[in-house]
């Protein structure tokens, strides 16, 4: 390994989406040297796809809003399976993170008074989402990207070298978190362009790799969502929490096939879009669950009045949390009331003028016009559920984002678990990235200050290098593309939006089989920008994620949020007290049940006791939270 490209940093951040960049900014601001490593070009991360907005209780549109209301909404949305401390920190710190973006140059849409405008979204009691039309994610990623450039320009002025202490390594895949003496020592990977290997030595590594959508056949995620960070963390000895919870966004495009799964922002419903089936029925009124009956209108008149008078009317049921809407659409289609292409209709053209639609939902108009030949200012869209987000993820300490069980490892953003419980509210993701990206940066800074460098041994390097070489050494083995497609069929058919015990058992066997065969993948061509080679490594990660999801899902014998069991249709208060912890022994993933942290009294008391009774056991209610 004489020619190995080698670097030393205080902190290595894997992933250049909102969470990774925010972590990097925090660590650099504290004086540390930071490498940002990402699979794509800088500025292309999946954050860019976020459309609707970033939830923060600034109270700019309705001044009744505050962190406590936001906290309650988040817990409700997650069906009380959230880690309370993460939900609390998120609700409290989200406004500061949004205002901070504005100081870094972000230009959000404004209210009449000139404040940051906020829009309605599913599950949020008040208009809460700071937004820029329907391209909020782009604004966030560009602002963070430009903040990184600002810090580099500062370093350039002060040291003559822009990249001395903060460098972006674009188009690099990390294949392994390296450890020495039981602690994180760095990361190893390859440059996608050249296939050449690269070593980062660093005492702290922040994983901010996003989601796992590409494990599924129909997804809103880009190719990057292959669960890299989930798998890297598992292999490094960290745990994943509650991997059974996947969010199927209710509205993805369904036609033409080529665009199936591409996201249709929830803002369409936030701005007044209604859902109807092939009979023309506005069906969502039939699907309001008991726990939400007092907050959602049960008739069209009241639902329509809400758009003009939110204080005296209940919300339209189109704005129920995503899991409820996705299940409702699924049921309608299954009952034979779907559209020609297996979706339902979503129509905003009857509520808003063409001019306003193009202004408020410009990229939706564009997307449907160019890809489906549908003019959404005149006609309805056809939509159906698409795999969008994983609630499960690396088990972390809420305050520091430190991965439980591995010194020097941190995780933030979608790759971290706990914050969203069993279902994420729209808009909570973007602020999650910022709140916990910053905290992961702070956590890494504290860790590096108290722990020195941890050099990587040659033996560790050789082992990591051998793994990368392996698929080239084989010939005539399995094709990574075909195995990936097989995996997607299995997850789609057996671990999808509605699950049964029998199907999950079948999935576990089949996933294990693919994993066995994947050890025999061979790659054609050389190392230079070779997608077949890249997929071989991405696939390995997806297989671990799928195994973890299927096994956790089999154990959880209830339906809650992003986990629906046909054989256990109800929500069960006893199951609410259980987190599923995935760990990996090098051979297979195993799951153990772990008690959910108990809501402390001051947070318990923020809720109406009758509401908590819908989720908690009588014993928990009697106890009234922990002290």
């Amino acid at each position, binding site marked *: 390994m004489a020619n190995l490209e080698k670097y030393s940093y205080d902190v290595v951040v894997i992933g250049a989406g909102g969470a990774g960049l925010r972590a990097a900014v925090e660590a650099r601001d504290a004086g540390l040297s930071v490498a940002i490593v990402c699979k*794509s*070009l*800088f*500025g*292309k991360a*999946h954050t*860019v*796809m976020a459309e609707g907005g970033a939830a923060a209780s*600034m109270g700019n549109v309705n001044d009744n809003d505050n962190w406590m209301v936001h906290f309650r909404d988040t817990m409700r949305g997650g069906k009380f399976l959230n880690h309370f401390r993460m939900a609390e920190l998120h609700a409290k710190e989200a406004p500061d993170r949004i*205002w*901070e973006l*504005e*100081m*870094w*140059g972000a*230009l*959000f849409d*404004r209210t009449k*008074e*000139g*404040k940051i*405008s906020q829009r309605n979204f599913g599950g949020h009691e008040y208009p809460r989402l700071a937004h*820029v*039309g329907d*391209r909020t994610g*782009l*604004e966030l990623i*560009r602002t963070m990207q*430009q*903040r990184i*450039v*600002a810090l580099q*320009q500062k370093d350039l002025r002060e040291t003559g070298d822009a990249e001395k202490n903060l460098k972006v390594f674009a188009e690099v895949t990390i294949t392994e978190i390296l450890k020495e003496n039981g602690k994180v020592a760095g990361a190893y990977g390859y440059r996608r*362009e050249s296939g050449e290997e690269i070593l980062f030595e660093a005492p702290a590594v922040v994983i901010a790799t996003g989601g796992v959508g590409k494990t599924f056949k129909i997804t809103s995620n*880009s*190719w990057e969502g292959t669960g890299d960070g989930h798998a890297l963390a598992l292999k490094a000895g960290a745990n994943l929490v509650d991997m059974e919870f996947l969010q199927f966004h209710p509205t993805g495009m369904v*036609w*033409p*096939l*080529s*665009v199936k799964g*591409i996201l249709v922002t929830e803002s369409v419903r936030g701005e007044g879009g209604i859902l109807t089936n092939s009979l023309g029925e506005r069906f969502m009124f039939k699907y309001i669950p008991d726990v939400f009956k007092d907050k959602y209108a049960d008739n069209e008149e009241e639902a329509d009045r809400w758009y003009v008078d939110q204080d005296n009317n209940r919300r339209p049921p189109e704005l129920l949390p995503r899991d409820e809407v996705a299940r409702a659409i699924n049921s309608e289609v299954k009952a034979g009331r779907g559209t020609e292409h297996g979706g339902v209709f979503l129509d905003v053209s009857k509520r808003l003028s063409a001019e306003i639609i193009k202004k408020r939902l410009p*990229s939706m108009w*564009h*997307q449907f016009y*160019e*890809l*489906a030949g549908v003019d959404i200012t005149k006609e309805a869209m056809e939509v159906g559920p698409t795999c969008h987000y994983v609630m499960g993820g690396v088990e972390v300490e809420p305050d520091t984002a430190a991965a439980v069980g591995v010194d020097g490892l941190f995780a933030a953003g979608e790759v971290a678990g706990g914050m969203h419980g069993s279902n994420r509210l729209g808009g909570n993701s973007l602020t999650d990235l910022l709140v916990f990206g910053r905290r992961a940066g702070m956590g890494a800074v504290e860790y590096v200050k108290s722990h020195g460098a941890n050099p990587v041994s040659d033996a560790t390097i050789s082992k990591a290098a051998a793994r990368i070489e392996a698929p080239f050494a084989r010939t005539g083995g399995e*094709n990574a*593309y*075909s195995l990936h497609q097989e995996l997607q069929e299995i997850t789609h058919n057996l671990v999808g939006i509605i699950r049964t015990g029998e199907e999950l058992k079948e999935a576990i066997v089949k996933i294990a089989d693919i994993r066995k065969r994947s050890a025999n993948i061979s*790659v*054609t061509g*050389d190392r*230079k*920008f*070779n*997608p*077949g*080679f890249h997929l071989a490594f991405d696939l390995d990660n997806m297989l671990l994620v799928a195994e973890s999801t299927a096994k956790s899902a089999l154990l959880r014998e209830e339906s809650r949020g992003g986990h629906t069991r046909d054989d256990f249709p109800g929500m069960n208060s006893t199951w609410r007290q259980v987190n599923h912890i995935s760990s990996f022994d090098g051979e297979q993933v195993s799951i153990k049940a772990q008690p959910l942290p108990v809501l402390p009294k001051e947070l318990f008391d923020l809720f109406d006791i009758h509401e908590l009774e819908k989720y908690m056991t009588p014993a928990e209610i009697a106890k009234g939270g922990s002290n």
Partner: protein
Amino acid sequence: MTRTLKLRIWRGDDKTGGLQDVTVEANHGEVVLDIIHRVQATQMGDLAVRWNCKAGKCGSCSMEINGKPRLACMTQVASYPEDEVITITPLRAFPVIKDLVTDVSFNYKKAMEIPTVSMPEGVKPGEPRMQQIDVERSQEFRKCIECFLCQDTCHVIRDHEENKKSFAGPRFFIRIAELDMHPLDTLRNRKKTAQEEHGLGMCNITKCCTEVCPEHIRITDNAIIPMKERVVDEKYDPLRWLGSKIRKREGIL
């Protein structure tokens, strides 16, 4: 529903390469990127192409399709006649790495040369008040997805490597315009540096950049021309220069 498609795909690297003929099936509604993926999965496992979102939002899959700079994910196969051979080549303005992937680092270097937003002193987070109408001008330019198609098509650098040193290109003219029109930004020499350091004067407003922009940003009309006009004004009219700055400062809070 399906049709048989004849393609010519450029394959090669920085040293050598050429067009290769490929025949592949295409389904209803598919875009060129779908076809490239099918070729990858069935015929050329190592065909290099950049892409991410496949929804026109990230600007990764920029290439030239029948000679036109386009996003492959937003180019419908059906937009080409049945018997037409579709030719797919990498962006011409940037050095090839492999196949359809080019080295776009030029753009990141230019981004580094433009000072980022400079906030007025004493303004605290949460305090700024701006009107929608005032943020909209910059918002138009912030729609940019950095696909660099405008850079690729711009004839100042497309076939003139020698101009790259002194010319930032349309992507960065809208970046400068965005900052210049940003209600909070305090740097006063943006237009001047656009002219003197980033080669604004070399643009002779043929509007090719505007034509290829997938976000339909009016690069020439709303960014380049207004900056050119004001550079000229300010050069000859100091009072007007002062006035514009005072007006801008009043708009801060």
